[in-house]
């Protein structure tokens, strides 16, 4: 039994790969069989992720020694082979991915899956890339998984086609292709200097570098940081995001909510591994802090300026990325735990929000969300209903669909803006409290800036969303949107999960604080991956 469990860390990569391959076999017309396969695969991933979470937390007997699970691919002992590393952070990201994926997958089965070919295999490949990026302990392997998830996301962002999607998708693809090239340069530079790609061994070897080599390494790390900041949508590298997320199909935008967090995750992973040797600029410290603050500011302006709900949602994703970057850049380590809590809450809420928006705007006239502010002044007439949604009238109308949508929209606003009583508020409150409490070590100016940025971005979110929400929900001329249960249920589930997160803040924070502690104990990670290497490095 335990020998089977030992292979658990590879399953989050293998399951979606297998599912994607199998999903290509039945023809597109056999919807039920394909849907069942995709659902089974995603459910299995969720189960595996939860078991891994239990194992890293010690709730379940772990299949490995110690807190951090290491899986050597092909049995090659590190540092020679590629390793997968399961620690608390990786496990929680896996669970988050699987939950969000399940919700968006169920949602897309109602209509969106039929808008184009190969949606389900691409979706599984995206999950494979995400899971792999969270698990891998090798720099070049991280690049490969980034490419896997990006290649799948290129396909998904174009899902449903149409001029707007192709245009936004093209910008998204070019930006990410350039970022990938920079990633390659960074990985090559780091390998050329340190002679290793294993992240644990890297952390060891950097300390022993000569000054000249260290400068080259810092250059490589700087490029790597820029790549991660592109993925994390930090300003000024984020102009692709609102366009791409706004144009993408709703469930795709929903699952993309976690894509920016991959960049944040990678930054955090490298920052904590390199902290003992003095991580180069983009990985922490004041640089990252101010970068995060500027990102929040730009995101806030975007939130206020945007005239379509999906664009507001896109800018809110940028704000949440900025919040996380500022929190990780904050002096001291006390903000890491609350930041992870905030990350989980904001990913679930943004995922739900993209789906709520699509449902709420269904059947609305195309011009209704343009110029929401100056609508009356311009006196725009009604135009043809937008036709880029397939099967407009599928499914029976749920009674009180508007009530449900209103409630879901309201909950998402509370979550994203950080108003009580849901988890968004708890997350932001804990972040600000931790920032103020850290004041003896950190300059008070930072705590003030951080708090002000968080509160102002919340205010802007409330203003923008209530303004556009009034347009959408208090529009008397519109027909009630038709929803299907399988569209409403996943959205409700995500919101309820956030509610549960708010009620279970105690246990959740125990876990996140333990995560933060183990993250900031980089030596434990190194020892787990390279047992017996000691602190001296292996030449």
């Amino acid at each position, binding site marked *: 039994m335990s020998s089977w469990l030992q292979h658990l860390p590879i399953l989050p990569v293998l399951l979606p790969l297998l599912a994607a391959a199998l999903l290509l076999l039945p023809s597109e017309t056999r919807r039920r069989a394909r849907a069942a396969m995709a659902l089974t695969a995603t459910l299995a991933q969720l189960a595996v992720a939860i078991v891994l979470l239990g194992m890293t937390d010690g709730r379940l007997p772990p299949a490995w020694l110690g807190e951090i699970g290491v899986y050597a691919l092909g049995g090659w002992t590190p540092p020679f082979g590629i390793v997968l590393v399961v620690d608390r952070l990786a496990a929680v990201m896996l669970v988050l991915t699987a939950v969000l994926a399940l919700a968006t997958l169920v949602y897309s089965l109602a209509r969106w899956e039929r808008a184009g070919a190969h949606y389900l295999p691409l979706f599984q490949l995206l999950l494979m890339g995400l899971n792999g990026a969270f698990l891998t302990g090798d720099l*070049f392997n991280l690049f*490969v998984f980034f*490419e896997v998830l990006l*290649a799948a996301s*290129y*396909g998904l962002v*174009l899902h449903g*086609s*149409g*001029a707007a999607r*192709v*245009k936004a*998708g*093209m*910008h998204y*693809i*070019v930006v990410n*292709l*350039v970022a*990938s*090239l920079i990633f*390659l*340069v960074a*990985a*090559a*530079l780091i*390998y*050329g200097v340190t002679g290793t*790609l294993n992240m644990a061994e890297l952390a060891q070897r950097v300390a022993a570098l000569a000054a000249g080599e260290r400068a080259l390494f810092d250059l490589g790390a700087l490029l790597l940081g820029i790549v991660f900041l592109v993925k994390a949508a930090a300003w000024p590298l984020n102009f692709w995001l609102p366009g791409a997320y706004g144009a993408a199909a709703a469930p795709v935008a929903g699952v993309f909510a976690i894509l920016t967090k991959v960049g944040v995750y990678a930054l955090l992973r490298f920052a904590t591994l390199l902290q003992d040797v003095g991580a180069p600029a983009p990985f922490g410290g004041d640089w990252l802090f101010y970068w995060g603050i500027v990102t929040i500011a730009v995101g806030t302006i975007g939130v206020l300026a945007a005239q379509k709900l999906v664009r507001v949602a896109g800018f809110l994703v940028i704000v949440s990325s900025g919040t996380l970057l500022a929190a990780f850049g904050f002096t001291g380590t006390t903000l890491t735990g609350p930041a992870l809590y905030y990350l989980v809450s904001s990913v679930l809420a943004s995922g739900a929000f993209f789906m709520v928006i699509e449902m709420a705007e269904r059947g609305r006239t195309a011009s209704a969300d343009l110029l929401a502010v100056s609508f009356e002044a311009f006196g725009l007439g009604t135009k043809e209903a937008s036709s880029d949604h397939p099967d407009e009238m599928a499914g029976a109308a749920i009674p009180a669909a508007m009530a449900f949508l209103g409630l879901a929209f309201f909950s998402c606003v509370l979550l994203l803006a950080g108003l009580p009583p849901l988890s968004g508020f708890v997350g932001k409150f804990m972040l600000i409290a931790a920032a103020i409490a850290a004041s003896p070590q950190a300059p008070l100016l930072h705590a003030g800036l951080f708090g002000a940025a968080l509160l102002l971005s919340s205010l802007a979110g409330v203003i923008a969303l209530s303004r556009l929400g009034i347009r959408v929900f208090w529009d008397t001329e519109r027909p009630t949107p038709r929803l299907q249960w399988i569209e409403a249920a996943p959205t409700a589930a995500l919101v309820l999960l956030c509610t549960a997160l708010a009620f279970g803040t105690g246990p959740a924070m125990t876990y996140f604080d333990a995560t933060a502690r183990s993250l900031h104990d980089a030596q434990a990670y190194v020892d787990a991956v390279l047992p017996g290497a000691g602190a001296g490095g292996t030449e």
Partner: protein
Amino acid sequence: MEIVLALAIGTLAGSGTYLLLRPRTFQVIMGLSLLGYAVNLFIFGMGRLRIGAPPVIDAVRGSDPALYTDPVPQALVLTAIVIGFATTALFLVVLMASRGLSGTDHVDGRESEKS
């Protein structure tokens, strides 16, 4: 040899960057390809330049690592080439779709005001 390689990488990267910033999709894809070549050469160079040293261990030569060049960058280049090839092909499809849908090869899907 180093200076030739460095010049080659620099020329490729420079022209690639210039083309990448041009407004036509075809220029962008050429720019991406040139940048890809520059990056591949760069990765290759990171394994240090050596002449007459194979990367794979050969029974006749023996197992002394000094006789061989570093095989890892070559494996990395191979992966990078494959991925670059695939993404270029994919981008080509998007380029064609964009041309078909918008009727122009401008990256924004419409001609700029000036031209």
